[in-house]
């Protein structure tokens, strides 16, 4: 009886693993196809029967991608003056990549900082208007940005932020999901520890910094990855807010490539590879930490 049950569950397991392996294959396929496609000749890409493995590897698509447009590697505008400093000219695609990284990192940092503080306050401070603010946050946290498309665009225009990366970053930071998440985490901070810190003479900030922050760090981490990935993929805000070649992000750049060169699939694939590979590299570094995090969890659990 026990034996039979074991067999059945082993059987289930094996079949499941096989199905999942097949699914995994289809999940990996788009990426495989992008990368492979970027090294194909245009004849191979446009052929009506798919070429699963390129017969001939070429770098033409990348050459084309990098010779298309140039942009300064970086630029700094000194506020209140007309002085702006710019780096050396590089292929625009490189600049797009940097823009995207900058955007995602800044959005992530700002979101984590503001949300951690706000979430802590919502969870631990009994202030007047708390329920109102929190209800607003709950109601707004799943709101798609398309809802406020035109008003937001006009607001950015009057703040003179339109066509700058900040126009993409600020609405991401304003999105209250992070506050909600951090509030849920901060509920777990034991009140006694805070009391104790207060008795020791710690002020509000110090209590937050030394007591609350270390306890909600895991939550901040979760929020960080969520924000990073979401802002990296937040095509909509980029589409609406950015226009100059030098200000584009990589997703927007590829979408433009695709629209401009519907005929040149190889070029689009090269752009798409360029967009995908860095973040996948980042992700592969993640992998190690994932495992580490899990073992850490096991020890503590």
């Amino acid at each position, binding site marked *: 009886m026990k034996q039979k049950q074991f067999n059945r569950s082993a059987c289930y397991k094996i079949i499941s*693993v096989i199905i999942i392996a097949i699914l995994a294959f289809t999940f990996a396929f788009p990426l495989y196809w992008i990368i492979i496609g970027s090294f194909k000749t245009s004849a191979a890409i446009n052929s009506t029967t798919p070429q699963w493995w390129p017969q001939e590897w070429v770098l033409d698509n990348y050459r084309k991608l990098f010779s298309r447009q140039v942009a300064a590697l970086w630029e700094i505008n000194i506020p209140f003056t007309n002085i702006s400093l710019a780096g050396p000219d590089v292929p625009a695609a490189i600049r797009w990549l940097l823009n995207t990284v900058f955007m995602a990192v800044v959005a992530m940092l700002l979101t984590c900082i*503001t949300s951690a503080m706000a979430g802590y306050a919502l969870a631990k401070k009994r*202030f007047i208007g708390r329920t109102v603010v929190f209800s607003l946050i709950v109601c707004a946290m799943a709101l*798609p940005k398309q809802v406020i498309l035109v008003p937001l665009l006009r607001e950015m225009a009057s703040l003179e932020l339109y066509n700058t990366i900040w126009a993409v970053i600020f*609405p991401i930071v304003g999105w209250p999901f992070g506050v909600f998440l951090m509030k849920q985490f901060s509920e777990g901070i034991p009140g006694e520890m805070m009391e104790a810190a207060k008795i020791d003479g710690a002020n509000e900030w110090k209590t937050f910094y030394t007591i609350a922050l270390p306890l909600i760090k895991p939550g901040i981490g979760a929020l960080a990855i969520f924000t990073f990935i979401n802002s990296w993929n937040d095509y909509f805000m980029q589409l609406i807010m950015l226009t100059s070649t030098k200000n584009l992000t990589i997703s927007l750049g590829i979408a433009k490539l695709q629209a401009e060169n519907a005929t040149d699939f190889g070029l689009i694939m090269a752009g798409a590879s360029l967009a995908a590979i860095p973040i996948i590299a980042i992700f592969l570094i993640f992998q190690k930490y994932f495992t580490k995090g899990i073992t850490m969890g096991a020890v503590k659990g």
Partner: protein
Amino acid sequence: MAKNSGSSMSKALVRRETIAGYAFMLPSLLFFLGFVIYPMVQCVFTSFFDATMNREDIFIGFANYVELFQDKVFLGALKNTVIIVVVSVPVTCIFSLWVSSVIYDLAGPACSAFRCIFYLPVVTGSVAVAVVWKWMFNNYYGIFNYIGTSTGLIEKNINWLGDEKFALGCIILILLTTSVGQPIVLYVSALNNVDQSLVEAAEVDGATKFQCFWKIKWAQIMPTTLYILVITTINSFQCFALIQLLTSGGPNHSTDTIMYYIYYNAFKLYRYGYGNAMGVVLAIIIALLSAVQFKMTESK
């Protein structure tokens, strides 16, 4: 949970708490009020106007709203939005839970390989993914038709993205591939953190694998499930890039979502007021939904 002593707090304490509370809230509130609430108020305000590009807005009361509920395309878009959310949220959760339950106790490298692969579409980004899917769904030489016809599964080529019957399904399928990555990662670590002693105790008591899973593990991964529900709902509502890049809402508005239709009205038809009215309706629906979801979370 936290010490609740509201009634016994002295006035001075309330004031101190309020000042401290708002001081901590301030940076976040600046962004929230500035870039979410303020535009939202504007949105509600302009929804009562006939607003378009470079012309004085004309006050028309509730006319936009009246029109909305007679606009077949809007109602269709509303339906599509609901379908996307109602299908993709549970499917994502169940699928990722199933995958995680199978792979979490595999040997280390196998598990991380699977996890990694399912995560790939998430990090590849919807734009890059859309490029390939567009080719795969191609009517004339796409891979689905190629495989389908050469294995005899389908008789003749299907115009996946150009046929009302299939287009929305295709969009949901792509959305699924780009949204299961994160839930799988979360579930795998949640399952690994399940208290093993409880599982063993149950097994000794003669519980089947299935019972074990349902009675013990499921309860323990509940917080993860709730978190996943929330982020998947958010993601499903944000499904804009796929539609804009693959179908532009077509064919025949069969893949229009309210999110895309707002954009379409604003920048193809120049109807800002009307688009804003749609936004208000969508915002109300989503706010209610979030509130309900939150209440559920709280009661657990």
